[in-house]
Every structure is written in C-alpha cells, then in structure tokens.
C-alpha cells in the first residue's frame, strides 16, 4: 500500500509541475535604456497600474513601461497628471498618494513626495508650476506647495471641496473646486490664491462642478462647469482674472479645455450616448465653433481623453482612452488638424498626459 501511495504521489507531483510549466508566463526583467532622446512621455493612469511610456520621435519606437525599465519599480495606481518644470518632471499619483519626481531627461526616479502621511491621505490630482514651486491640488480640499529645489512640501493651503485643475494668471493661482464627492451638493467656485503670500484671498462663483480650467495671455480664464450629469448641463465660463468676475458663459459639453493661439481646443467624449466624440476649436469670445471638428482628415478617435499642445509648433496631441479598459493610443495632429503620426501606448490604459522631451 505504501508503495502504491508513493507511486501515486509521484504521478501527481510530476503532472502537477508539468501543468504549472505549461500554464505559466513570465514577466520581463527591468533593463534600463539610454537617456530619453527627443520625444514624448505619455502618462497612462491605468485601470489598475499607471504606466509612464516613452516615444522616440526619431525612431518611432515606443517603450510602454519606461518608468519600470529605468527604475525597476512601479509608479502605482491612478496617475492623474504629469508636468515638466526645469530639469524635472512631476507625476501626480492619485490613489497611490504621492508626487513622483523624475529626472526629465533620463526618467530616473528622484523622489516620491508623500501625500499619505496625513491620515487618510490627500489624494493628489493635478499639478502646475510657477517660479520654483509646483502646486498640487488634492481631493482632500487642499493645494500643496512643493519647493522644486528641495522637493519638500513647504506649505499646504486649504481651498474648497475636491479641487481639480488649476491655472495661473498674473500673480494669482485659480483652483477649481468641484465638490464632486459631495454629490449631489456640488461646489461651484474657484479659489483664488495669491502667489506671493500663498494665501487664499477669495472665491469666485462660476457654476456647479467646475473641473477644468485654462488661461490665456490676456488675463482671461476659461472654466468648465461640468454640471450634474443630469439636469444642469455642462458650460464654459469666462472669468476676468484681475477683477475676479464672470464675463461670459455658454452651455456646451466639454471635458478637456486648452487655450492656444487665440483659440480654445476642447474635447467632448460621449461615445455611448449617441453624441459623436470629437475635438473642436472654439472662439474665445462667445465659445462658438471655429471648427466643428478640429480633425480635418479621416482619423477617428474613439474617446478623446487628454489634450496637449506643443507650443513650439502648434502640434496637437490627443490621447484616446478607447473603452477605458484596453491600451490607449496617442494621436499627433498638425495645427491644421491633419494627422502626423499615432502610436499605441500598450500596456498603458487611459493615457491622459503628453509631456515633451525636446
């Protein structure tokens, strides 16, 4: 009986290990590549894991998990925003709760600035840079100030509920207070922060659920008040930064807004509600369409998600989140809306930011 048992065990062990071998797949090992040449960083927030990808403009090659290759470490979950300032780039990790700072040219990790040392964590969301400081909005109702030399948080300013995007005009920082987590009682204000004193000096009422904001060079802000997704429609609100007053508003469904060269570039992404998903150019005066579709060729984008403009040549980069669960794609258009190139950001899901390596 004992013999039989051993034989039986041996059979199970062997079949078991064969089974495991035939059913396994291995991860690739990290292997740093040389410094990023002229190209693009693409941040994909991920369904789970965020990915920083690198696109080489000369060769057209794309490295989907550049951060891991360079650092042997993962970014974490839900990277919402990425900006460059000086020789560094700042990646805002929402769920993971930090701002990951890399050397802009090499992609090497410099520091993870902790946003979870305050219980239960600040949930950082967007970043904007100004004169040696990076300002980070966080969903706990704060804006933190990072000194770009020491990479320390030097100050945290209380604003409204669940702040989102920020814009700078003159010596003021404007912060959208969405109040999105207080559904259905959204916030409807912009916080104004004096950049010299780093104190919130007031609030401007713009309309419910403000999330996106962009500034022109003439002292105007364009704010998207997203509405409540049900009865209150989405609108764009024009604010005079100096007087802090609303000077124009118009209802239009917009999810991302960027000011460039006397026009507003906006995306609206309603792929499943019958509205075509498109990218438009709006007049800054009355938000009427300068073009119903910025894209002038046959390029189709399923879900425009992020929009970034290369200020050197007017190229427009649009990220496509597709159905939000598969690898996204980045499209580059010239200023006339003709596609120059596109690439998949696999395995990146929900790409939201393109940052230039010049």
């Amino acid at each position, binding site marked *: *009986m004992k013999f*039989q*048992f051993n034989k*039986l065990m041996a059979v*199970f062990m062997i079949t*078991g290990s064969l*089974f*495991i071998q*035939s*059913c*396994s*797949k291995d*991860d*690739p090992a990290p292997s740093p590549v040389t410094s990023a040449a002229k190209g693009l960083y693409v941040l994909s927030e991920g*369904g*789970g*894991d965020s990915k920083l990808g690198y696109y080489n403009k000369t060769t057209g090659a794309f490295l*989907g998990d550049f951060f891991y290759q360079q650092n042997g*470490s*993962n*970014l*974490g*979950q839900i990277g919402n925003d990425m900006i460059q300032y000086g020789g560094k780039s700042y990646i805002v*990790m929402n*769920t*993971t*709760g*930090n701002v990951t700072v890399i050397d802009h040219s090499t992609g090497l990790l410099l520091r*993870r600035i*902790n946003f*979870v040392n305050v*219980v*239960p*964590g600040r*949930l950082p969301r967007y970043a904007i840079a100004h004169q040696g400081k990076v300002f980070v909005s966080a*969903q*706990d109702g704060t804006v933190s100030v990072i000194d770009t030399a020491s990479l320390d948080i030097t100050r945290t300013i209380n604003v409204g*509920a*669940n702040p989102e995007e920020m814009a700078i005009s003159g010596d003021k920082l404007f912060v959208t207070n969405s109040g*999105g*987590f207080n*559904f*259905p009682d959204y916030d409807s204000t912009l916080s104004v922060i004096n950049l010299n004193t780093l104190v919130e000096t007031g609030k401007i009422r713009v309309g419910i659920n403000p999330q996106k904001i962009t500034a022109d060079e003439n002292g105007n802000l364009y704010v998207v008040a997203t509405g409540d*997704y049900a009865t209150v429609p989405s609108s764009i609100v024009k604010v005079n930064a100096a007087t802090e007053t609303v000077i124009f508003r118009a209802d239009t469904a917009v*999810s991302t807004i960027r000011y460039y060269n006397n026009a507003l570039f906006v995306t609206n*992404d*309603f*792929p*499943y*509600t019958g509205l075509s998903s498109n990218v438009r150019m709006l007049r800054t005066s009355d938000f009427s369409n300068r073009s119903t579709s910025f894209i002038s060729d046959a390029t189709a984008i399923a*879900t425009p998600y992020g929009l970034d403009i290369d200020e050197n040549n007017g190229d427009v980069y649009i990220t496509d989140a*597709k*159905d*939000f*669960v*598969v*690898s996204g794609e980045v499209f580059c258009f010239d200023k006339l809306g003709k596609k120059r190139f596109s690439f998949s950001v*696999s*395995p990146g899901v*929900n790409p939201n930011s393109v940052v230039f390596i010049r």
Partner: protein
Amino acid sequence: MPVKVWAAKPVMEANAAIPVQQLDQETLSRLNSLSVADAVKYFSGVVVKDYGGIGGLKTVSVRSLGANHTGVMYDGLMMNDAQAGQTDLGRFSLDNISLIQLFNPHQPALLQPARNFSYGAVLSMMSRVEEISNDVELAAKIRGGSFGFFNPSIYFAQPFKGGLSVSGNAEMQVTDGDYPFRDYETGDASVRRINSDVRNYRLETDLAYQLKDSGVLKAKVYFYDDKRGLPGAVVLYNRNAGDRLNSRLFFTQASWQNKIAPRSQLKVSAKYTADQKYYLDPNFPNSAGKIENDFRQREYYISAVYASQLAEGLGFSLASDYQYNQLRRNDPFASGFANPSRGILMTNLALKYERNRYHLFGNLLFTGTADKVATGKAAKPYRELTPSLAASFRLTAHSPLRLRLSYKRIFRLPTFDDLYYTNVGNTSLSPEYAHCYNIGVTGQWQQQHYFQRLFFTVDMYYNQVRDKILALPRQNLFQWSMQNIGLVNIKGTDLAVQADFGKSGRVQTSVQLSYSYQDARDFSNPSSLLYKTQLPYTPKHSGSVNLGFSWKAYTIGYNVLLSSYRYRAGEPNNSNLVKEWATQDLSVRYALPRNKNFKVQILAELNNIFDQQYEIIRYYPMPGRNFRVGISFSKKVKRNHNA
C-alpha cells in the same frame, strides 16, 4: 443504528442526465475548507473570485456564465439577493453542511419549486439536519489557528415522541486576518494585510415533524451577523484602509410535503428573508468625511408544487411560485434612491422519464415580473418562457458507460443594482440570455480489481451569453452606465474522476481528480481590442486533486488546487497578467479511542504547505502557509421509542 428520516438521496453522479458534482461530509472534512466557497473550488467548471482571507468576497461563476447565473440553494429552497444577484459564498461556513452539490443546470427532480429551474447552475447546500438521527446528540467543536483565528461551535439534536425533532447549531468565527504577504515592490515578506478583521456568528434552528399520515413538515430559522474590515486592493506606497462592512441575514423557511393520492405528492413551501448590508468608508473625501450605504432587503416567497406519476417511470410536476422583493436604502447619503420593489411569478412544468437504459428530464418555465419604484422610472415588466431538455442513456444494456445530452435556455433578470444604482443603473435594460449545450460520457465500475468504486465523467459544453449586462463608461471614468451589449461564447470541458480503493480494516484510499478547460471569449465588439479575448480572470486550465487516506483512527487528507495564468482585463499583455498558482493542503484527524457513543477527534490542518504567494484577483494577495488545530466532541444517547 441512525435512521435517516428524510435524507436527501445523493444523486448518483454517473447516472445523471444532468451533470452533477458533489462533496459529501466525509470529503468535506478532509478539504481544509472553512467556507462553501473554499470547497467549491474543487469542482470542475467553477471559477471562484476570491479576494483573499476569511473576510474577502468570494463569488462563483460556473462555466463562465457569470456569478448572476448561479443559484444558491440551502436545504431545498433558493437563497436570493435581488440587489446584486450574486451570493458571497465565503459567508457560508462548512460547520453545519453535510453535502454540497453543483448541478449544471438544475437538479433533475420533480418535487421542486419553479424558482429552482431559473438558473444556469444550481449550487445546493444541505445542512446536517437533513441527515438527522433518532438519537439525542450533543456535539461541540473548537478550532484555533494562524492570524488570530478562533472558531467554536455547538450542535444539538433532540428527538421527541410522536415524530417531532428539534436541532440547533451555533457558531462563531473570529479572526484578525492580518496575514503576511510579500510586498509587491520591495519583496519584503513581513508586510501584513490590515483592516482585515472578521467577527461573525451564526445561529440555526431546525424543526422536523414526521406526520402520522406520511407527511413531513420542516422548518428552519437562520440568523447570521457579521462585522468585518475590508482591506481592499493593495495600493503601492499607500497603506491606508478603513472601509467596514456589517451585514445581517435572517431567514426562516418551512415546507410541508405529503402524498395526496397513491401516485401524487404535494409540497408547499414558504420563506421570509431579511438582509441588511451596512457599508462605511470613514475616509471619503466629502464634507461629512465619510460615506455610508445602508441597504435593506426583504423577500417574501411562497411555492406550491404538485408531482404525479403517470405511468411506470414517467412523472410530471407543476409548480407555481410567487416572490416579492424590496430594497430600501436608509442612510443620509441615499439621495434620490429609487427604493425599488419587484413581484415575480414563476410557473414550471417538468417531465421526467426513467426506464431501462433511458433517462429523460425536461421543463418549461414561465417568468413574469412587475417592478415598482418610490422615485424615478421603474423597469418594464418582463415575460419569459424558457425550456430545458436533458437525456441520457446507457450505451448497451450492461455497459458501465452512459452518454448524456442537454440543452437549456436561461435568462437572468437585471438586478436592482443593474436597474436602479444611483447614476449607473439603467431602467431600460433587457434580460441577459444564455443558451447552454452539454454532451458528456459517464462511466461507473463497482468492486473490480482493487477498486471499490471508480467513476468518471467527461462533459463538453458550449454556452452563449447574449445581451450580457455590462457596465460601460458614459462620459468619463466616473460616470458608468449598465448596457445590454455583451456577447460571450464559451467552450469548455469538465473532467472528473473518483476512485475508492482498499479493503476495510486496512488503508482505505479515496482519490478525486478534476480538470477544467475553459475557452470563454468576448465577442461583444469587433472593433475593440477585447474582441475574441478570454474573459477576465478566467483560466484556460484549472484542476484539483484530493487524496484521502484512512487507517485505524487516522484520517489524512491531501488537497491540491491548480490554476493556469489568466488576465485581469481581457487584453493579453504582461501588465494584465495574473500568474498561475498551485496550493497544497494537508489535514490529519485522529479519533481518540472512546466508546462509539462518545467520540473525541483531534484535527490539525496545514494550509498552503509550500507557502506559495499567489493571488486570484490582482492586488488581493492570498494567505501563505497557515495552520489550524481543533478538537471536537460528540455524544449520542440512544433513544428507543416507537414513533
């Protein structure tokens, strides 16, 4: 000699026209499983989504139909969650379970409520009371183990004169659940799960009355109270977790069955269920600094079934059920919640023919619904007629082999969550349909060579799920909506072998093997990268091995679970890869030499012997090596009365 008063006859798996797998009490006691969810991992064709630990959610999808198509039955009547449509099987302790069966798609029995025919698969749990004896019995068990696990339970059964018998069972489970796992970034093996504590207790009372006129009356009262932390997914560089879930389940069910004519039987059943789930996120970034969900469900259910023998081997039954479900949300954040209620009428006609080499079972189910809401728009009424047919026959008059074929068309109603979940629900949803085809061969040999018994089943199936209800983003990642857009084609093979050998008095060995192959592909959208990819978290290959040895006072169980790699989202890339895993468990029981009416057993279990670090759901690490030890006492007092 214990007498089974109304023992549920275990279906002979090898003869069944409908695929059935089962785990009896003896096998269950060797499995190192705490909950029903742990045990059903040993069935083929089953994918258990296990979020880890005692407190982690565990749902079951059979043959890739989705968790909503699996019905869960307790002592003959279905459990139902009208809100989510799926049951957390981690909440059902094995302490009081004597038999678990999985039917694809339903139990081929006539005297059953109509609702029992409305699923793609039925998981049946039988409590110990179904095998009650005529003796007074008192039993107690206490177990302890790794991560602060403490689990006492008691059981009593008291028969009275005149055919009445009462039994009761109480159990408590406590654990810190703070098992260590290997940190995803640093590899540090000393990191622990946090906020993973569980404290639950369960009370069950059963009453059975064997009536003078051959009728049987049964009643059950069940109460379960559970408080747990939700450790959540591991988030890199962020150790905050504070979500809590408190739930309560109360149900009471009663049934009466009797012969009303020489060849006719009637069974009447009723059930009332109250269910409360309270969820708290104490770290929600709103102005209250927290969010609460307090969902309360009620279900009222009645059923009557009439079964009659028409001729030798030929019988039919007609069943009619009515159920009424309501869902209320009672928390300060409930803003505009629909508070829906639903009435469902089901009527079922079933036909069974068993003669000579041929077995046939068919049914036709009518379902009609009506929804009402306190605010907003109610779903349209649904009317559906769904059939099934199964046949099996012995290849030749004395062949040990049988061939079986079956087809079932099923649908699942949109759940309250699908229809009415704030901002996500869609009241214009249609039901989700599935067509299920099965062809299989079974074989059975008794006492040949050194086998006491050997049987195997091989089944190949094809399922198609149409109008699958999926959540889709509407405007952005924060706005989702339920839509009938899925199309899934599933091809699979289930293989099971069981062999018992060894003579009484010597080492007796029992071997069970199962293997599943599943090719479950998403055909929803030809332009998506997901087109024709394998469903998330569905391994192509999975299997299990159970070995049981008994020798004198010792019983040893050795159990292996295997799963091939799979992808967390459909797109097959390394970022989505969830690696293959295998676990091995060992259990030893020793019965102290006592007289046969007072039994003492010592048990020891070693789980995940080789400390395999694995996950079933990405970022939900499973426990590594851990142990449990326990002791059980059982005392029987003979009663001699002529009931």
